[in-house]
């Protein structure tokens, strides 16, 4: 009946309907992710406007170089991801695997740098909780800043880890010849997810790392 394995799932009438449904499904899912992160962004904005000095001096303690490098790393990974999607669309499976690998490398590099930063913060006693140390009177607002820092970047990191797992699964599937120019939807959709996680970081970086910079 079908020439390529699983040309479309049984609930769909044709591959076009399946592609449309999958694509819409991923966008709806990303909408839920916007709301999920949005709650934390809202909380962050609220406290930042209440404690501008506390947030500025706490933000100063973040390593802006590591943060900038990470931003560059992630943007590059979105580029390699886009190249992977493009390769998938023209059926170049070898290129797909190369670009997916590069994306994983960059994603893992990001996570490595992130966890280095976390470790540094742990050593500096800047992890909120009973062991938090911050000199000066702004200790409460600094602790709130770091609560949001860890919650938001932590949640982002969880999404990165999930993304890397998805990319790995994609590489395995590509190596088994599951994708072609006529069917490469999973690559496209993981691409969407990856770009979204990148965009979240684009917002996180200035909000967390660049708070006090304009105050000089």
């Amino acid at each position, binding site marked *: 009946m079908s020439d390529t394995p699983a040309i479309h799932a049984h609930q769909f009438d044709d591959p076009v309907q399946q592609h449309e449904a999958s694509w819409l499904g991923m966008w709806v899912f990303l909408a839920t992710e916007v709301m999920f992160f949005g709650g934390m962004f809202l909380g962050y904005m609220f406290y930042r406007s209440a404690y*501008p*000095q506390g947030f500025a001096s706490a933000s100063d303690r973040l390593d802006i170089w590591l943060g900038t490098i990470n931003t560059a790393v992630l943007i590059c990974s979105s580029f390699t991801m886009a190249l992977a999607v493009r390769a998938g669309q023209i059926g170049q499976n070898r290129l797909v695997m190369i670009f997916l690998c590069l994306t994983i490398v960059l994603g893992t590099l990001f996570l490595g740098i992130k966890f280095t930063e976390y470790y540094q913060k742990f050593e500096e006693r800047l992890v909120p909780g009973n062991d938090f140390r911050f000199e000066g009177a702004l200790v409460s607002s600094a602790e709130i800043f770091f609560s949001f820092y860890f919650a938001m970047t932590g949640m982002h990191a969880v999404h990165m880890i999930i993304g890397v797992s998805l990319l790995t699964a994609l590489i395995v599937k590509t190596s088994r010849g599951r994708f072609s120019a006529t069917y490469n939807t999973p690559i496209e959709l993981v691409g969407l997810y990856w770009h979204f996680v990148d965009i979240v970081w684009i917002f996180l970086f200035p909000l967390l790392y660049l708070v006090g910079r304009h105050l000089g």
Partner: protein
Amino acid sequence: MFGSNLPLFPDQASTLAPRVDALLYFLLAVSVFFSLLISISIVAFAIKYRRRSDSERPPLILGSLGLEIFWTAVPLAITMVIFVWGAKLFFVSFYPPPNALEINVVAKQWMWKVQHPEGKSEIDELHIPAGQAVKLLLTSQDVIHDFFVPAFRVKKDVLPGRYTTLWFEASKPGTYHLFCAQYCGTQHSGMVGRIIVMEPLAYATWVGGGGTGGSTAAAGEKLFQTLGCATCHLPNDTGRGPSLEGLMGKTVALQGGKSVTADENYVRESILEPRAKIVRGYQPIMPIFKGSVSEEGVLQIISYIKTLTPQAGAQGKK
């Protein structure tokens, strides 16, 4: 076994209560009208149009734009009336009149601690005079509580870390329920008390009848001295800290360009977290008094500051 009376409507014991009840009656009338309209229509249609044979073919009726507009516009109009009426009442209940008698209340699990300005304090009871506006300054030592007097139709959450206010004017002497109306833990339903409304003369006798230690403001002055506030907050802006005469209600210019209207919350924050807002032209050197003074103490200091009026001829920095 059962209570001998079956109350169906609460006492009206404040000037606000009849006004709230008037809106209630309007809402009841609207509700009864529409409930009856719909239920009677349903019953009437269900009977009149009951199926008599399986071959019945009801007419094709798709709708009516006119009816839709009508039954959108009418509820809209009615709800807007309710909104405006309710909003007006809300404004009245939100803002106390200027001559209100101020009483401090500190809530904690699971009791109400009341402090009269003349110095008398009570637990789980509040004596007040009839015919006099009373403003309560409320705060909590732990979780969120809520000060609720059904007979007055007033209610306000009581928060840790800040003040909320509530005002009423009792119209009728008597004893009325006080309930905590925000779930606050194990003995939430035990956090009840009595509001005892007295004739003004009786109240004056009662409140004058000796609390120990004098008035709240006097207690506040004592704290002002013992905690060292007086060392920096000298009159006429001559000290290391700004003067506090006439502070309440004044607009205070802050470092960083913003300004704030000095109210009880501002003063409390300035005592417990002085670095949160620095007055323009001053250094952030005020010690942090969090942990060194209780909520009652802060309220007493605020009462004292309210008594500080500017000296004639004082200049002061702006």
